Each structure stands twice: as structure tokens, then as C-alpha cells.
């Protein structure tokens, strides 16, 4: 029991040291103005009506994005996971692409398409161009880009959890009910924790998003923190301006916990294959609808980027100049994803099994860090690790890894918690009774039985580490940039075709490992 306790304690302490300590140090500094204790940074926060309006805008945007992605993502994930839809694997990978591209680039691609002089205007005329432009700039366009970017989060998690359901439950229900009833009353309710997790991730990612709303001229609250960082260089006020978003996230977390408190979940314990829903004659109808959706939210923006990058010279130049950045991105993202799986597994276990008294506290810390702007964590990491004594960490790529762990542990933790919930405690207890220690139970029961969750956590971690910009931008050692950093630093005044080529290369290098892994195992 002690080894389990100590392993989990070490994981929590490491999370506190790596993630929370930098933020606490920033928070403490934000309580001081000119060397004396003061709440001035916080008092300034909601002094004008505009700040309340910005907060309201952020809430409306993030809630709308979460609701729409959940409403679209559940049926999409269900169709890909449980039906015999033709070409469902390539189609599901296609839907993941917008998540890989930095959202700001996606909004530029849409601008080239829907702007007043965009492709639509050139094809259908100026008046249509004016209409599409007014749709794009403002709330509607921002919501559209955010939904298309974050839809894969809900879709992938729905797929993952639906495949974990005990097929016997569905078989029993199928004896007296149609598939639509089984899905509504059995399958979807069983995966509610997964759906809430997906909604929570989408909510957090959209409430903290700044790039897309600012380029599409919809003002949101994160701009307050950003302005303090980038215009005023006032780190303390910037930290204070980031805290409300973290607090809102914690409130949403409490609501989620209250809602799911009494729920129990039944996942499959056997190796029986999952039940597949035959679509019959409706197969082609569903195929047409999904293809249309894929065309609108994936093919169009990617097509625009391809059109813009249509030159072998551009690809050659983009690849030659960025080869090292590509290799570093892959390396750092792989290392980051592996670290996130390890932390995610241990903290997910802690949350699911309530193995220590403060399991919810550890979860709250991870979620809070996930909700905070990367810049706050980045500057916190600098102030904590940039000393002569710790230069070995700060001046190496290890600092990037620490940033990934600080920011994204919540993803691995929550995915693993839901995944571990399908392994009954009785299995562990039986092994313990016959004398198996914690590490034996870990390596011979828990890890093998949660393989699918581990792979999902790794893939999600890989995508998020690979596309990370905020933290990497703040802490990467000189001459160690990653591809997203390079794309952003090259954006100013580089030819459009080179930037578009780099985005396409980014999509390819992300999809390659995903494709290889999906070939190895059906996930």
C-alpha cells in the first residue's frame, strides 16, 4: 500500500512543483505593487463595463462552442465508432485535421475563402462576397472557426468511450429495442463522463482562445491579460487578468462533479468485439451528410491552404528551412506525450480510485493549469527555473517538457480516469490478496487493461504538444524552435505560399504518427 501511496504522492508533488509552483509565484507577485502588498491589480480588473462585456462575450462564445461541438461531435463519434459507414477511418482522420492546424491559421484560410475578395466572392460575385465577409467577421465567424477546430475533441472522445462499453448491455437492450433507443437510453448515458470531459475541454480551450476572436474582430476577455503582457509588459496585472478564466473553469468543474457524483458506469471487461450498427439503406444518406460536413469544415480550408501553397518551390523552401524545427517538434511532442501519459495515468488513477484524500484537489490543480494562459505558465517557469543553479534545465529542451507537463497534464489525467474506471477494483484487490505488490498490479493488470486509454492519451497529448505555441514561444532555448513557433515567426512578411506549405507540412507530420498508430491498433 505504501509504494502505491508514495508513487501517487510523488506524481502530485511533481505536478505541484512543475506546474503550480510557477503560477503561485506569479500569483504572489501579482499581490504586490511597487513592493507593497496591494490588491490594485485585481481591483483594476472589472472597473469598466467593457471588461464585464468582454467576460460575457467569452462565456457566450465558449458555451456556444461547447454546446455545438457536443451536439455535432456525439453523432459523428457514434457513427464512426459504431456503424458500418463506408470509409469511416479516413473520414474520421479527416475531421481531426482542423485540430492540428493553429486556429489562427485556420481563420486566415477562411478569410481567403469568405473575405470580400475571397474565392467565394470571385466565383459568385461581389454581393455574395460582402455577405460572407460580414458572416466571417464577428461572433458568427469566430464561433464557426472555433467549432470546426474543436469538434474533433468531442468526436474522438465519443469514439473512444463508445468502444469501451460492455457489448452485453447493448445486446440485452437490443432484444427488445431498436438501435436508436439503445443509443439514447444505454450507450450515450453510459459515456456521460466522457462527454462531459469533452465538453469541459472544449469550454476551456475556447474560453482561453485569443487569436481567432481577435483576428475575426470579436472582443473577448483573454485580451485583457494579453494586453498587459504585450503592450504594458506588466506581468503582475497580466496574471491577475488571467485568474478569472481559471476561476470560471473551477466553477464549471464543481458543477461537473455535482452532476456526475451519483452516476455509475459499466464498461466492458471482456475482449468481445463491440456491436456494430448496420446502417442498411441509410448508409449512403449518412455518408453524403458526413462528406458534406467534412467538405465544409475540413476540405475547404485545407483546399485553400493547398491552393495558396501550390508550388514545388514553396514546399522545397519550406522544408529546407524548417527541417530541424520539424524534427525537434516531433521529438519534443513525443517526449511530451509520453510524459503526459505517465502523469495522466498516475493522476487519473488517483482521481478514479480516490486513492488519496486529496484526489479532487490534484484534479482541480491540473484543470486550473490547463485553463490558464500558456504565457502565465511560461513566465512563471522562467522566473522559477532561470537561475545559475538550474541553468541545466532552463537552457535545455527540458524546460519545454516541463511546460507541456504543467499545461496539458489534465488531458492525460481525465482520459486515463475514464479509461481506468472500466477496470473493477476487485481485480486489483484479488491480486493484492494473493500477494501482488503495487508495481506488479500496475504492470500486469492496470496497464494492459487500459491500453486503449493509454494510446488515446498519448495521441491527444502528442497533438497538443505538437501544436503548442504559447509555452514553447516563451521558454524554448535559442536555436531550438519548433514548427508552430517557426510558422508564427515567419508569418510576418513571408510569402503566403511558404506559410501555407508549412501548415500543410504540419498537418502531414501530425497525421503520420496518427496514421501509423491507427494501422497498428484499431483506435
Amino acid at each position, binding site marked *: 500500500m505504501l509504494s502505491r501511496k508514495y508513487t501517487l504522492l510523488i506524481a502530485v508533488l511533481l505536478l505541484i512543483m512543475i506546474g503550480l509552483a510557477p503560477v503561485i509565484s506569479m500569483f504572489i507577485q501579482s499581490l504586490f505593487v511597487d513592493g507593497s502588498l496591494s490588491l490594485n491589480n485585481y481591483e483594476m480588473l472589472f472597473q469598466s463595463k467593457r471588461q464585464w462585456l468582454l467576460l460575457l462575450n467569452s462565456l457566450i462564445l465558449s458555451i456556444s462552442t461547447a454546446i455545438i461541438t457536443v451536439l455535432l461531435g456525439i453523432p459523428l463519434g457514434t457513427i464512426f465508432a459504431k456503424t458500418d459507414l463506408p470509409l469511416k477511418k479516413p473520414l474520421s482522420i479527416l475531421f481531426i485535421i482542423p485540430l492540428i492546424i493553429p486556429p489562427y491559421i485556420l481563420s486566415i484560410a477562411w478569410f481567403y475563402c469568405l473575405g470580400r475578395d475571397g474565392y467565394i466572392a470571385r466565383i459568385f460575385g461581389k454581393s455574395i462576397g460582402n455577405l460572407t465577409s460580414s458572416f466571417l467577421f464577428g461572433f458568427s465567424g469566430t464561433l464557426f472557426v472555433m467549432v470546426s477546430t474543436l469538434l474533433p475533441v468531442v468526436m474522438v472522445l465519443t469514439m473512444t468511450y463508445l468502444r469501451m462499453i460492455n457489448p452485453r448491455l447493448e445486446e440485452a437492450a437490443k432484444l427488445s429495442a431498436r438501435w436508436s433507443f439503445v443509443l439514447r437510453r444505454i450507450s450515450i448515458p453510459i459515456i456521460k463522463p466522457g462527454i462531459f470531459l469533452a465538453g469541459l475541454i472544449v469550454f476551456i480551450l475556447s474560453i482561453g482562445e485569443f487569436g481567432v476572436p481577435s*483576428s475575426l474582430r470579436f472582443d473577448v476577455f483573454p485580451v485583457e491579460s494579453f494586453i498587459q503582457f504585450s503592450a504594458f509588459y506588466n506581468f503582475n496585472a497580466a496574471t491577475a487578468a488571467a485568474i478569472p478564466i481559471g476561476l470560471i473553469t473551477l466553477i464549471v468543474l464543481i458543477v461537473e462533479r455535482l452532476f456526475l457524483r451519483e452516476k455509475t458506469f459499466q464498461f466492458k471487461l471482456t475482449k468481445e468485439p463491440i456491436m456494430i450498427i448496420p446502417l442498411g439503406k441509410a448508409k449512403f444518406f449518412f455518408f453524403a451528410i458526413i462528406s458534406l460536413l467534412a467538405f465544409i469544415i475540413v476540405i475547404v480550408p485545407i483546399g485553400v491552404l493547398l491552393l495558396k501553397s501550390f508550388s514545388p518551390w514553396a514546399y522545397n523552401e519550406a522544408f529546407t528551412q524548417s527541417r530541424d524545427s520539424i524534427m525537434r517538434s516531433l521529438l519534443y511532442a513525443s517526449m511530451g506525450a509520453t510524459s503526459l501519459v505517465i502523469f495522466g495515468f498516475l493522476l487519473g488513477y488517483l482521481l478514479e480510485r480516490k486513492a488519496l484524500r486529496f484526489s479532487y484537489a490534484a484534479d482541480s490543480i491540473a484543470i486550473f493549469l490547463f485553463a490558464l494562459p500558456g504565457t502565465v505558465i511560461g513566465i512563471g517557469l522562467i522566473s522559477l527555473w532561470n537561475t545559475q543553479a538550474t541553468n541545466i534545465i532552463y537552457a535545455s529542451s527540458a524546460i519545454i517538457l516541463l511546460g507541456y507537463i504543467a499545461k496539458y497534464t489534465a488531458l492525460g489525467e481525465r482520459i486515463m480516469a475514464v479509461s481506468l474506471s472500466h477496470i473493477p477494483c476487485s481485480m486489483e484487490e484479488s491480486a493484492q490478496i494473493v500477494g501482488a505488490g503495487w508495481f506488479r498490479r500496475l504492470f500486469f493488470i492496470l496497464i494492459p487493461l487500459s491500453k486503449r486509454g493509454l494510446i488515446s492519451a498519448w495521441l491527444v497529448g502528442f497533438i497538443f504538444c505538437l501544436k503548442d505555441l504559447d509555452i514553447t514561444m516563451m521558454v524554448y532555448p*535559442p536555436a531550438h524552435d519548433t514548427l508552430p513557433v517557426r510558422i508564427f*515567426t515567419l508569418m*510576418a512578411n*513571408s510569402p503566403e505560399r511558404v506559410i501555407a506549405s508549412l501548415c500543410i507540412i504540419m498537418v502531414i507530420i501530425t497525421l503520420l504518427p496518427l496514421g501509423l498508430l491507427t494501422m497498428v491498433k484499431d483506435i
Partner: protein
Amino acid sequence: MRFRPFLILIVTMVAIYSCTRQVKNEVVVYVSTDQVFSEPVLRDFEKETGIMVKAVYDTEETKSTGAMNRLIAERNNPQADVYWANEPIRAVVLKQKGISTPYFSQNAEGIPSLFKDSQGYWTGFSARARVFVVSSEDAPSSILDYMKEKWKDKAVIANPLFGTTTSFFSVLFTLWGDEKSKEFMKKMKENGVKISTSNGESTTLVVNKEFAFSLVDSDDSTNAIRDGKAVRQIYPDQEEGGIGCLILPNAVVLIKGGPNPENGKRLIDYLLSPETERKLAFADSAQIPLHRGIETPPDVKKIEEIKAMRIDYEDVAKKLQQIQPYIKEWTGE
């Protein structure tokens, strides 16, 4: 014996650490000038001197918080030797925060005193001008056109909280005084001026005919023109009695306590040389050399051909800090 693996691990880590602490022939530079223009210059420096350049490049201010925030956050244990800023205001901020240290380069001698700090905390080179990029047939000729009914809802400007647009408004407040400048900004707003995230985005919006014109940096407009886009470039307020056009040089700064100060000074000398100014004039950055008599391509004006605003960058930086709360309020209205 039980501790042998730990001992080996500690010895290995100490060895790795010692290797990383060995003096290397390198220089660390943080760069806010667009990477596409600055990277080739730094590569040339590497080739010519054999000193390895380790660079951290910045994004446009409104895309991410980059080099300046790093420099400020790292002040207690600086990692950079040199900061290459894309305008002098940031360099003045570093001076005020005690992050930079004076260095007088011999190569700065030919640069007019207007474009360098008298105490040697920063030195300007290769400037850009604030110009109009225009896509309409008719063209504005003065920044006052932003207030005119003729251009209602047809003009855009980058967010004045960031970058060179901040500098531009600070200059106006310095030259005109607070009252006149606030009146100008108020009328701009009433005339339906839209705010974009950056000068690059303003140019894209004008190129794509979302707007008729925008005040941008000359490298943005020159690039669009050289890329074959249907826009042209206008130097504002060049007529007799006009206030002239804002000239913003790059500025190079030596960081106090940087790890390789001597190599840092060599890099600064290199950047301030007439040859680097010539390269930046002929590159797509189309920057205006500050040394006199340097050859430029036909579409890059010489500094003596431009009617420039007469300003003190130190005063502008001070004014900037005073007016930022007002500008923040203005952008949010």
C-alpha cells in the same frame, strides 16, 4: 554498492552540465525584426565570423507574447547577449528597466544622432517608414484623411496598443499634444476606422479590398507590391507644411550580463555596418539605410528624400507609457 547507480548518474549529470558551461564561440540574439528578413543577415554573420548565432525570433506583437517578455522575465539571469528590435521604443523600455547596457560601436558613427541613444543604450539602423498602402483608385495623402467623410468605413489601422502603431500614436501625442491627438483619434473612430491585429493583417485586408487604405510599415506595403498585389504605397504628409512621415529604425541593444558580451559587441558592429544596411535595403524588407550614400533599389527612397517627423524617441517612449491607458480605452470603445 547500492548507491553506485546514483553515483554514476550524478557524475554523468555533472559532466554534461560542465560541458554545457564551457565557453563557446557563440552569440545569443533575441530578434523582433521579421525573421524572414533578419535570419539571412544573421547567417551571413555566422559565415563571415565563424561565431555561431543562436536566435530567438518574435512573432508579430498581437499573435503571441515573445522576445520582449522573455528579456524582461530573464533579467536576473540573462540568456541573451543582443536584442535586435524592430523599432527604438522597445529599446528605450529595456533601458528604463535596466536590462540593457551601453555600447558605442565605431560603425554607428555615420548614423545621424536622431537615430541613436546619446548614452549608447541603443543604436538605430536600417529604417522603415509609416506609409499608406492603398487599393482604391483615389488615394489619401495625409493621416488627417482618416477623419474625412470621403473615407468613412473604408480605412483600417493596426491595433494601436502594439508595435509600430503604438509608436505612431505616441509620436502624434508628442508633436500635437494630448488634446489635439485625442480629438483626432475620436474623429477616426467616428469615421468608422476598423482595427486589425497587425500591420501585416491590415495590408492583407487592403490587398483583398476589405478596405481602401491603411497606415502600415513600408516593408509590409513594399512586399505586397513586389508580390504583384494591386496596391500602391504613399508617403503621407510630404507637402509643404505637412508633419512628415514617421521613420522607425531598427535598434540594436547590448544586454547587461549576457553570457557572451564580446561576441555580442561583434554582432552589433556587424549589424550597424553600411554593408548590412545595403543588404536590408535590397532584401524584401526594403529598409531605408541611415548611413548616407548607400546604394538603394529604385523602390526604396533614400533617407534624405523623405520628409521625416522630427522626434526624440526617448520622449516618445515616455509619452507612450502615459497614453497607453487612454489607447486601451479607445480600442475598447
